């Protein structure tokens, strides 16, 4: 299993029956693969749909049915479609329970930078800011380090923040952090990793409250 899938599987374990969940682009999209048939989790996509089903069989894609990453999806029984403004009204209005977002960096207060890439002009933001501001609960799903092995959890983000609002939970392949009282709390170390690995690869201060 790739690291990305491993993270997605770990995030899925934090979702509960009845939650309305929006999946961001990248690792968050993979979370859908790890929701069992009876999970009771309902997926919303910001381009205007509630009740997103799994990817269609090869050759069965409907060009009018895509998720926010423009990938083909299916509609579950009970699905509905709505306009962009209505969709973001659901998001901004707090009707979407949980937003799962990728991250380029996360700071010591749990704030996410995930929309502007290093060394490139800022020409795309999509729905990331709306989702971060509007969802009742935000889960950041990210690799623990960059491709170069640098920590993604850092004291202060060098990249522009997506919002002042912090994530509530940060899930990597190695660890889970909760954001409490404006700081990071290590609540779980993943099997195969140790506390020392997490300490060596985390650039932000954190406290521990391991179960």
């Amino acid at each position: 299993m790739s690291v990305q899938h491993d993270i997605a599987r770990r995030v899925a374990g934090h979702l509960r029956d009845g939650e309305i969940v929006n999946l961001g682009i990248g690792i968050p999209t993979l979370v859908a693969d790890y929701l069992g048939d009876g999970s009771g989790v309902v997926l919303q996509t910001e381009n205007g749909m509630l009740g997103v089903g799994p990817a269609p069989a090869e050759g069965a894609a409907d060009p009018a049915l895509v998720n926010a990453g423009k990938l083909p999806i299916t509609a579950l029984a009970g699905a509905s479609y709505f306009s962009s403004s209505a969709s973001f009204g659901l998001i901004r209005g707090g009707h979407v329970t949980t937003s799962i977002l990728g991250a380029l960096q996360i700071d010591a207060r749990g704030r996410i930078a995930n929309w502007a890439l290093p060394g490139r002009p800022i020409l795309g933001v999509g729905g990331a800011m709306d989702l971060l501001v509007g969802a009742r609960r935000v889960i950041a799903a990210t690799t623990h380090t960059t491709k170069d092995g640098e920590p993604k959890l850092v004291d202060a983000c060098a990249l522009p923040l997506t919002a002042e609002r912090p994530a509530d939970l940060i899930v990597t392949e190695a660890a889970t952090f909760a954001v409490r009282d404006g700081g990071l709390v290590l609540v779980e170390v993943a099997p195969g990793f140790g506390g020392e690995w997490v300490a060596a690869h985390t650039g932000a201060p954190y406290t521990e409250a391991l179960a």
Partner: protein
Amino acid sequence: MPRSKLIGLDEAAALVPRGATIMVGGFGLVGKPVALVERLLEHPEATELTVISNNVGEPGKGLGRLLAEGRIAKAIGSYFTSNRDAVVAHAEGRLEVELLPQGTMSEAIRAGGAGIAAFYVPTAAGTLLAEGKETRAFDGVAHLLQHALRADVALLRARRADELGNLVYDKTARNFNPDMATAADLVIAQVDEIVPVGGIDPEAVVTPHLLVDHLVRTP
């Protein structure tokens, strides 16, 4: 039989004057009136355009072709990085860009069509996209003032119309189209089929006909 709103692609394209601000529906190419947009290429007056659309198409497709031919002076949207031509045009100073969070953009269009001049929204407060915008706190939460968006012409994509111009859409191809239908002086919808009046259940109509000026049918 109502007065027909059906016109040809060329007649529709000729309604976009030089320097016009146009709204174009679609999320990427899904729900984008590609035939209508690409017909603008054959009308030299459709240039120096300001385009309000989530993206500016893809290279060689839809709005991407207008951009490649230098017809677009300014783009207002949320995600231009999916078209590398847009990134290059911006870097070379050929394309002015106004970037908005997708939810703020769709609400600005909705407001423009609903007679609301501006609104306060918490999205983007405290970020780079707040620069130059009025910030005001409500219940201790920072909000940005966002002005409504309107256009001279809206180009839409719908699945089906009746002869009056009532519209229904196709799944997630709906996206920005119903919002844009409300926010332009002239609204042209590209549809797959036109049915007689009464052929669409009133409960199913998404865009009521008073908003639609012209229909273009594409096979």
